[in-house]
């Protein structure tokens, strides 16, 4: 297990979980909802994909199922982040004094 593939896979694992840690840190430190969606969704997507890649290096026989999980994550994570941002906007929680321009409210025909 301590071959060159193992070392590469371990390094990918550490890189992926570092991105997960950055996503969690951004979730705590960011000031409002949209920034938290940005930090929490994209960093964790990359982190999970790197983790799956590292485990595919460590266990090459599992590559097909790991690829399936990765494709599923690529499809579902942007959808959930978009739906969350839209829900935050429609429920009025995203109205902030810093948001001077609100194109989505203009598209919905509301007064922003």
């Amino acid at each position: 297990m301590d071959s060159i593939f193992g070392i590469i896979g371990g390094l990918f694992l550490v890189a992926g979980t570092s991105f997960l840690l950055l996503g969690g840190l951004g979730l705590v430190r960011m000031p409002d909802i949209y920034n938290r969606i940005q930090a929490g969704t994209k960093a964790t997507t990359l982190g999970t994909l790197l983790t799956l890649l590292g485990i595919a290096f460590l266990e090459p026989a599992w590559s097909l199922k790991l690829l399936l999980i990765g494709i599923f994550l690529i499809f579902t994570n942007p959808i959930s982040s978009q739906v969350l941002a839209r829900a935050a906007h429609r429920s009025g929680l995203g109205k902030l004094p810093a948001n001077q321009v609100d194109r989505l409210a203009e598209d919905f025909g509301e007064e922003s």
Partner: protein
Amino acid sequence: MVEFLIGLAATLAGIAFLLALWRFIKGPSPADRVIAFDVLTVISISGIVGSALVAGRVIYLDVALVYGLLSFLGVIVIARYLERRL
């Protein structure tokens, strides 16, 4: 060497889980909690796949796939509820 790297990765993922859990508990609005829940499930998928590696059982990958599907549906349903009150 590989065991050390796997342990370091598990520690980093655990810290990330705790940070997201802090936002899930404290979050001032329901949308913050749903975002934190989404991040928690994505970190949990990594954790389940990592436990499949440590335990050496391939069946846990199927568990991770079904868990990701159900958590995705849960996030979509809660977001629809926040948007339109069902």
